[in-house]
């Protein structure tokens, strides 16, 4: 074949190969902004040469395959770090909501309400028979109780919101699992005929990354190109072309547990095994952080209620009544001023003895002094110091989550940049390639016209 027709064949092969390359270049350029896209390139190979005397003559070029430029190890690393990032992101977000709630910098928080409450008792000490002082005290006490109620219910609301997020993510995870299973099948079908399913693999990698932001999983790829995705604890989410679903079940505290469905109607609680992704961050805030603050708030409200009531019920109101509780309720959620007191402020007991009405203020003094007594944490700290350290704790937690989040996003950012550096499309590079392939194409076309001229010369000789 090392004749003029051979030249024509080589030229034809070259035209086709360069055209393939231009096709791939155009695909790269078109997908320059597609998320998760890995640039592709044509592998050009020489055809099998033919042996002649004096030596072998090449038979031109062929496009042997189209493959994506991709670092598999990098993808796995990005997914692992993304799980951490998702966790800190969700935890930071949740904590910041709690922080806004307990923000005392505005001077209108629980600390302020407590200060005003104790000051109102001081005012009653100064004028135990005064109607104005009594009205103000009952109003300030009401404000204090309502501040407790508000913070408590807002914390509960945060818990509910996180619960909604968790539920939403579960259906998102299921959707992704379904898509990965479908892609598994498509990829296997294509690759069985020794083709590279480049674009589908990019899509699947993107989905795996998306999954990593939500929950921690382990993935492995088998020889026919299918990935297996396991959630922590070894329960499969995707295996071959099959996907399993997660769901939620209401637990004893009225919140949602995350369960894995085996497909035969049985569910397994996997809430405690989740250790990464936004899921983990939300679970952490919902099940550990918020309940902790709710408990502290309860402790504070209950201790104030018990201590004040204890003194108050031993005292005597202006009307001579005794044994009245000042606060009612059982926790921070429902603490309130005794409605009888709100209706008749004469019931407020300032006097320590019936005979001392109205000038006796000994009970009012004792209650006002509670402000500075070590009443909390096993009688080691005052009410306000207890609350202040709670706010400080929260500040620390937010700071820690922020630092971790910043660090983690820096890590993921770095890895993504690295991935982009390997797999990303560079327009400059593609332009240069385009020109390169165009010139090669033009040269191959010139080969054909040259072969044509050669043939013409040959024919005209006859």
């Amino acid at each position, binding site marked *: 074949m090392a004749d003029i027709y051979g030249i024509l064949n080589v030229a034809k092969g070259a035209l086709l190969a360069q055209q393939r390359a231009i096709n791939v270049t155009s695909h790269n350029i078109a997908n320059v902004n597609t998320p998760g896209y890995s640039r592709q390139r044509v592998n050009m190979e020489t055809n099998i040469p033919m042996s002649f005397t004096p030596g072998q003559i090449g038979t031109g070029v062929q496009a042997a395959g189209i493959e994506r430029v991709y670092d598999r190890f990098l993808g796995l690393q990005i997914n692992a770090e993304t799980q951490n990032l998702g966790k800190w992101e969700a935890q930071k977000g949740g904590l910041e909501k709690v922080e806004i709630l307990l923000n005392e910098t505005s001077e209108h928080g629980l600390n302020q309400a407590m200060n*005003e409450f104790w000051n109102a008792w001081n005012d009653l000490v100064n004028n135990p028979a*005064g109607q104005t002082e009594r009205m103000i005290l009952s109003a300030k006490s009401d404000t204090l109780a309502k501040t407790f109620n508000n913070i408590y219910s807002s914390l509960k609301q945060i818990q509910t919101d996180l619960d909604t997020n968790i539920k939403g993510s579960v259906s998102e995870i299921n959707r992704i699992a379904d898509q990965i299973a479908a892609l598994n099948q498509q990829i296997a079908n294509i690759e069985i005929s020794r083709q590279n399913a480049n674009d589908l693999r990019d899509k699947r990698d993107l989905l795996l990354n998306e999954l990593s932001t939500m929950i921690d999983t382990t993935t492995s790829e088998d020889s026919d190109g299918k990935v297996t995705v396991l959630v922590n604890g070894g329960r499969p989410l995707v295996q071959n072309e099959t996907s399993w679903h997660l769901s939620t079940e209401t637990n004893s505290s009225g919140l949602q547990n995350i369960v894995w469905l085996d497909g035969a109607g049985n569910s397994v609680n996997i809430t405690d095994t989740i250790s990464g992704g936004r899921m983990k961050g939300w679970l952490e805030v919902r099940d550990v952080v918020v309940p902790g603050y709710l408990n502290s708030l309860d402790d504070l409200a209950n201790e104030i209620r018990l201590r004040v009531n204890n003194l108050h019920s031993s005292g005597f109101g202006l009307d001579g009544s005794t044994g009245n509780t000042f606060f009612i309720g059982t926790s921070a959620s429902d603490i309130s001023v005794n409605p009888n007191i709100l209706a008749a402020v004469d019931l407020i007991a300032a006097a320590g003895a019936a005979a001392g009405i109205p000038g006796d203020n000994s009970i009012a003094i004792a209650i006002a002094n509670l402000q500075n007594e070590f009443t909390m944490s096993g009688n080691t700290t005052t009410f306000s110091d207890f609350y*202040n350290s709670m706010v400080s704790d929260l500040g620390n937690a937010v*700071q820690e989550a922020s630092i971790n989040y910043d660090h983690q996003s820096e890590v993921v950012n770095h890895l993504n940049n690295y991935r982009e550096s390997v797999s*990303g499309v560079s327009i400059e590079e593609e*332009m240069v390639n385009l020109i390169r392939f165009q010139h090669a194409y033009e040269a191959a076309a010139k080969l054909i016209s040259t072969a044509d001229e050669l043939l013409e010369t040959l024919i005209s000789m006859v």
Partner: protein
Amino acid sequence: MRVTNKLTVDSIISNLLRNKERLHSAQNIVASQKKVNKPSDDPVGMANILGYRKTLSASDQYGKNITRGKTHIELTESTLSTIHELLREVRRLAVDQATGNLDDRPTIAAEVKTIYDQILQLANTKLGNSYMFSGHRTDMAPFSRDAGYNATYHGDDGDIRIIVGEKVDVKINVNGEEAFRSVVNVFDVLRDLINGLENPDTTTGTTQIAAQISPLTDSLNQIQSVRAMSASTFTRLESTENQLADFKLKVEQLLSDTEDADIASAIVELQTQETAYQTSLATAARIIQSSLLDFLR
């Protein structure tokens, strides 16, 4: 490293966002003039800030309490001082009468009766709606008398206390018992004096009058001693008030040190961040424009 278009754009975006965030927080500090704007800005500082605020709020309240106590004592003092003056006048009259001057006895008797009522009225002084000398029974006038100038005490020996500091309370009242009935019963002494002055038997009357001089001196001493007690409480309140003012100043300073931004350095920081942001904008504008395409056309 292979730098692609997306890489350039991503890093421009993330740098711009980071610089803008820093600019924002610098702006926040300048606008609020506070360096602690939320607990996570400075968790330990935040706990201190809340502690200082509680201390300041309580100190303001103690200041209010002390002012109230001082008013009470000042009124007590001025009332007792008037009563003291009146009793001295009575003793002067009694000494006069005991040494034989008999002519004016009905007039003097009338004068002492007037003074008796004046003292009674003073003992029934009210501060706001409360009687000052009736102990806990502040709703009841402490003293009343019958036609025979027999006085009855309606109050009790209750203490009125105010809070002047953390778990410190101070008694501020003088009750009727202490002022008028403890050593001698002032009103009984006056009654006996009136009886002596009105005694038709002037000789017996003189003896009766003379017998009241020593109790009158005791009455004066009794009033003086409760005045001294009040005065020492007053001094204590005043020094507490001064200490409180000093203390408040120090706590305010601490609060300001912890919470307030140093405006000069905050503004310098703001300008630095502004410059950084503008520089990153300018850089972005230059990098994002250029491409090989510009030169291929």
